């Protein structure tokens, strides 16, 4: 194992550095791709960093009706994101704090961040935010089974319930069980787009308070709170994207090949989102649960197929 060779501290620092500095760049890639496809020049790749820096300098305006829950939403988004980044394997190496059963830990940290942001948005008493929160909660309730079934498939195949070793097993044996994992990948892609509020499920560029989901829940967050929310959303994109990238990455190699491959995978993923958002319209909200059920089915069949595959 590479972990034994690398000092634990270096791994920890690498994960922290990636989690802190890389996420806004993904937003930059998506915005750039969308702009280029539309025939515009687009904002510079580092625009999101600038926005976050600008917001951090601003004042927070608090409504009189809000309580601590309002503040806790964006903070929970960042904290849970950082927590997940500590237990998921990024660039071919294992995670710094991976443990047996950390799959469940990751899923519930995602759930917790969702719970806190729903609380924060309900705390304002704003009717739009309530609508957004209701949609968010409905969708995540449907996305969770797909996530768990996919994890079940990986755990069943690899015999590990820790993401690090589990992904190694998957990655090194793509050829043996590709069918089931393609299904899991398909299901998780839908979950990924829903979790990150991307088109066709939600429009991150939207300004329509009656139709938005993620953005509408943040309408009242200003200044540093909004900066946290934006950074937290990009961090979530990174950690959930990492799950997808790690299923796809073919084999484990040496660390100085695996890390660039990981970054390349993330960039490709951002490119893919940008292209998708350039050619697809948003779905009608009532159709979203249908697609989420399809995600559950895909992961279920992936899981069931593994019983037929020779190990």
């Amino acid at each position, binding site marked *: 194992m590479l972990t034994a060779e690398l000092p634990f501290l270096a791994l920890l620092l690498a994960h922290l550095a990636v989690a802190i500095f890389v996420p806004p760049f993904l937003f930059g890639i998506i915005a750039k791709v*969308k702009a280029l*496809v*539309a*025939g*515009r020049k687009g904002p510079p790749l580092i625009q999101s960093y600038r926005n976050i820096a600008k917001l951090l300098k601003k004042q927070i305006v608090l409504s009189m009706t809000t309580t601590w829950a309002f503040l806790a939403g964006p903070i929970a988004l960042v904290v849970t994101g950082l927590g997940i980044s500590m237990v998921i394997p990024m660039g071919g190496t294992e995670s710094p704090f991976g443990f047996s059963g950390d799959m469940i830990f990751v899923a519930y940290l995602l759930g917790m961040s969702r719970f806190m942001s729903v609380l924060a948005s309900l705390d304002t008493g704003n*009717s*739009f935010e*309530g*609508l957004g929160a*209701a*949609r968010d909660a409905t969708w995540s309730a449907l996305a969770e089974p797909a996530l768990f079934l996919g994890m079940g498939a990986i755990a069943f195949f690899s015999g590990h319930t820790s993401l690090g070793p589990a992904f190694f097993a998957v990655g090194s044996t793509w050829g043996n069980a590709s069918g089931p994992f393609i299904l899991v990948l398909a299901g998780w892609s839908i979950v990924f787009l829903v979790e990150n509020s991307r*088109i*066709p499920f939600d*429009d991150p*560029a*939207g*300004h*329509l*308070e*009656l*139709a938005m989901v993620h953005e509408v829940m943040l309408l009242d967050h200003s200044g540093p709170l909004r900066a946290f929310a934006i950074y937290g959303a990009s961090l979530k994109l990174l950690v959930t994207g990492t799950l997808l990238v790690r299923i796809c990455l073919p084999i484990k190699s040496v660390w100085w090949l695996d890390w660039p491959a990981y970054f390349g995978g993330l960039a490709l993923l951002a490119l893919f989102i940008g292209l998708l*958002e*350039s*050619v*697809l*319209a*948003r*779905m*009608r*909200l*009532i*159709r979203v649960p249908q697609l989420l059920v399809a995600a559950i089915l895909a992961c279920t069949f992936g899981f069931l197929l593994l019983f037929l595959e020779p190990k």
Partner: protein
Amino acid sequence: MSKNHLVALNGSVHPLEEIPVLDFEIFQQAILDSAKDNNKLVCLTSDQGQRAFAVMADQTSKSFKVFQSIFPETFPSLTTRFLQANLFEREIAEQWGLQPIGHPWLKPLRFHKQWTSDQYSLPWTLGDPGAQDFYNIFGDEIHEVAVGPVHAGIIEPGHFRFQCNGEQVFHLEIVLGYQHRGIERALVGGPHQLSLKMMETVSGDATIGHSWAYLNLLEALAGFQISDRSSVIRALALELERLANHVGDLGALAQDAGFQPTSAYCGRLRGDFLNLTAEICGSRLGRDLLSLGRANFDIHPEYSQKMLKQLSEVEVDLLESIELLWNTSSVASRLEGVGIVSKENALELGMVGPAARASGVDIDARRDFPLAPYDIIPLPVALEDSGDIYARAKIRATEIKTSIRFVRSALNAIQNMESSTVAPETEYLPKLAPNSLAISAVEGWRGMIFHLAITDTNGHFERYKIVDPSFFNWQGLALAMQGENISDFPLCNKSFNLSYCGFDL
């Protein structure tokens, strides 16, 4: 049987004594009878709270029927029997304090004081338009969503009150009036030097439409004839206005559906059409393009050629980008079967313009009540029958094609017309026919813009009534949302894209 009404043409002037004065009961019955012949109520109003005037549009004879009566202090409401009278009766009650007895929802339209006194007519008017009683639904699962008057995005102020069950909308009530500027009241005693400027801003995106309607009226009352060339330039400007707005709306529709390509391209192409207008007169919205008796700016042959070339270039990109909208299934699923207004409802509400044509109502003032040059260069009327967002978008696309054809033939025709924009420049305001009534109708891009003027003994406006197409169509939007998902409201709203200030006046 003697005729109980006056037959008037678009842009004709009639002495008031030619209009028979009916008993009020007979007046109301005459309106109902006329409506039974599929005539549409285009205006029901009063001059200074005494005489009552009703104008019905009769498509088959290409003319308007004008009825006259005297308003009693209180009168039985027509609304329950004839829905098109709804907003007009509310308006009359608000402006003059006349009481339509039995009106089911007698709420102010624009929240202003009476014209004749310093009083509010209706008890609702105390306080903010949004802080009123609304049509309510009660139940454990019912929640109310209030949107506006301040919106996310650069749009006009209006208040929308939804009664929802989860995502489903049971009822939508729209309250406007935030931009009431008192345009009609300011025109009493007019025309003034600045009246034309005021008309250009009744609804800024329909500058040409409203100013043409006004000038058509004024020219009729003053007995001016305008040259063929000037009227072609007016029509050209009107179609360019239609093109710019339709293109912009298709782009906005794509944007609200989250569909980037059409949104990005139509946003740019809208600018190209606005720039064509700007190259004629220096204003993208066509301000100052029209003036009394003539068009302010001529289109020289070399410029016609240039415009024709630019038009062809824009057309290619435009048709491609619109085609993309129909051919993308993810967009189609947002548009089809959503926000339906049935033909029956559209007729009952008296809807006009593309929104009505999308529901299969075959009306278009350019064909029904044509002004020159629409009588010579006729335009086919776009019709759809599904009444959903898709139909309203499709109508826009069809009208874009016909308007481009019209602009092209107008630009070609104008090169061979004698260059006589030279009606004398009128610095002064003309003397108008006294004690007369004149009506004027122009098919703006939202639908029929209707203006009515009544002059006093000195030839000044005693009453000037503007009916913007949005006046009728806002009710259509409210109806289209019943039973729909609240998240589809932005898209549905955009497919109508109605004017707030055109309603508020």
